[in-house]
């Protein structure tokens, strides 16, 4: 089963046609040669709904590989973001990308193949470092894979490198292209999970929880290592039972021994996102919690609520399997210690913990 997202319009930036990714895309979808100048695109009003159906093919000039920006006074996982695209055809009500970028379209960087060498060289020049790289920060890693074909480009390249892993993070079932490849080493396919209530009500256009876990199970059976991300955890009515339903589904479908890590993070957002969410998703429940301004300026749940969420999830996940590589995303040392009973102390400590997980699974 595939999640296919409709593309109503394709915009092509100057010079985009010369790149190989462009040729592949134009073979897979009909491109009506609709060109627009950059100024014209920037002058358009932000229409996120329309942007989610507008593919914008762009040669990217910025840094392809960037460290996760992290956030002040919180422990970061030390992840590196491979910048392949911005924006996402899914429409999760809580998505921070709604107020993150100035252009609403699905921008795909068509010169990725030509520039990938820069990233690979950097990895090869630092054999003592482990590069944990993902494409799922600014877009869903697999939502547009049926159109763009990132799998065939990225998986063979990263699979050859012992000091790097590539994590493809998704809420879809789009694994067809990557299933056809032979490579499994250094590749992690991971899914964002939530309670059935949040998944059904807030994660518009995403695969259902069951579909995600069935797809994850298929990946495991095909030899892939998988990961999961409970992010954002959102307390809602009956949240304990609801999250237990998700854990029950995990137990039914997934072999925990082949799970490299499970992260957790509670819903947090820059204050300006709230108005966007209210406007775009008037019936959402994600803003109902007790949010306070955190030390980094982002809105977060009041600390005891966050700790309650993490403790609950940790206890039940650890009861399922005691070696799941559980970690917290963007939390303080204090919250780590009081929710998990231990803390990596700082970003370096968490990076070491996750690097060790990589070594354990991929040698």
């Amino acid at each position, binding site marked *: 089963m595939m999640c296919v997202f409709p593309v109503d319009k394709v915009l092509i930036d100057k010079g985009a046609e010369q790149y190989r990714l462009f040729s592949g895309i134009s073979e897979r979808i009909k491109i009506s040669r609709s060109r627009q100048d950059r100024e014209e695109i920037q002058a358009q*009003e932000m229409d996120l709904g329309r942007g989610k159906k507008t593919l914008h093919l762009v040669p990217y000039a910025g840094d392809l590989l960037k460290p996760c920006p992290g956030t002040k006074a919180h422990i970061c996982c030390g992840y590196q973001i491979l910048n392949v695209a911005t924006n996402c055809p899914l429409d999760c009500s809580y998505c921070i990308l709604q107020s993150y970028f100035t252009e609403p379209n699905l921008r795909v960087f068509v010169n990725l193949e030509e520039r990938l060498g820069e990233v690979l060289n950097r990895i090869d020049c630092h054999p003592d470092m482990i590069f944990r790289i993902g494409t799922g920060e600014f877009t869903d890693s697999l939502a547009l894979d049926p159109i763009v074909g990132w799998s065939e480009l990225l998986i063979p390249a990263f699979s050859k490198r012992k000091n790097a892993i590539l994590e493809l993070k998704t809420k879809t079932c789009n694994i067809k292209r990557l299933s056809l490849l032979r490579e499994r080493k250094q590749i992690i396919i991971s899914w964002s999970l939530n309670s059935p209530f949040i998944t059904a009500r807030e994660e518009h256009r995403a695969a259902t929880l069951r579909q995600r876990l069935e797809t994850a199970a298929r990946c495991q059976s095909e030899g892939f290592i998988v990961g999961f991300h409970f992010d954002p955890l959102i307390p809602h009515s009956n949240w304990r039972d609801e999250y237990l339903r998700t854990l029950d589904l995990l137990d039914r479908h997934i072999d925990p021994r082949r799970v490299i890590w499970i992260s957790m993070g509670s819903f947090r957002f820059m204050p300006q996102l709230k108005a966007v969410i*209210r406007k775009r998703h008037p019936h959402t429940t994600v*803003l*109902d919690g*007790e949010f*306070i*301004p*955190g*030390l980094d300026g982002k809105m*977060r749940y*009041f*600390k*005891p*609520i966050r700790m*309650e969420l993490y403790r609950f999830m940790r206890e039940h996940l650890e009861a399922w399997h005691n070696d799941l590589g559980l970690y917290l995303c963007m939390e*303080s*040392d*204090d919250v780590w210690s009081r929710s998990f009973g231990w803390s990596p102390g700082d970003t370096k400590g968490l990076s070491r913990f996750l690097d060790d997980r990589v070594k354990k699974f991929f040698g």
Partner: protein
Amino acid sequence: MHHKIDLMKPIQISLDRLSTEPGPFSMSYGFELAPLINSLQNVGLVNSPIVMEGEGGAILIITGYRRIAAFRAMGKESIGCRMCIQDTFAPSDALLINFFENLATREFNPVEKGMILNRLARFLSPQEILTQYMPLLGLASNKSILTLYISFDNDFDESMKQGLAKGRLSEQTAKALLDMNPGDRKAMGIFFLALRFNMNQQKQVIEILTDISHITGATIADLLGEKEVGRIISAPSLNHPQKTKALLGLWRHQRYPRLTLAEKTFKQQVSRLCLPKNVQIQASPYFEADLYRMEIFFKTGKDLKDKIEHLLKIEELEHLEDPWEGAE
């Protein structure tokens, strides 16, 4: 057009013939007449209003609506005006004469900006308004801002317009009110104007009540009509600032039950310690940081030492903890 105005000689027109309504070209709203009357009484009419003969002999005011109103308030019977013949000016010319005359001499309030943009929109394309006129009004050339200001003119009732023009409602508050349904907007507007919340409080009230409304399904008008709210508003023992504080406290507790409980518990914990005078213990904002802070103010080293010794004797200090710990 300008040449024609220069050549016009003022003629006396009876105030009875001039409408008391601002008419289609005026851009004045929410003004005070007193300073203008004072000026007219001291130096007389320096600049004559410009008027135009309309259909059926009616006289339309192009510029000088406030001067005419001031003359009327002063008990005068006529005023010297420069009269244009209808055919000489297109309505758009008349509007622009008023606009530029006002622009050169004063700042417009937000309601006036809305009136101007609304009137310009009848004659000019949105693009012209965006690129030429919005910057002149000190506004960003942005479609949503244009729509917002026109809504100030179209969608607010008189009391809200007065509140906005006189600065009792902030533009941010006005924008938030426009996002509400008409019933909630009206209830909220009446409430703000009656209770004199400052701008920051208005922002807080809107945000908290909007959240509570989403969570509970009650309308904002319903929330404002709740018994406890009515009790606070009508409490004779409370003045305006006390009422606004009490209302904010009430809604804050409804919106943030765990945080407000923690704040209360912490305050009680600290109070039970009976700290020496000039010693304070404070939590970080929202208890987000993991450390608490103690401040000791002292006059001499001896004073400091005494205070520390006093603190060491407070056994309860050892049990001071996060205020939610006992409750979990």
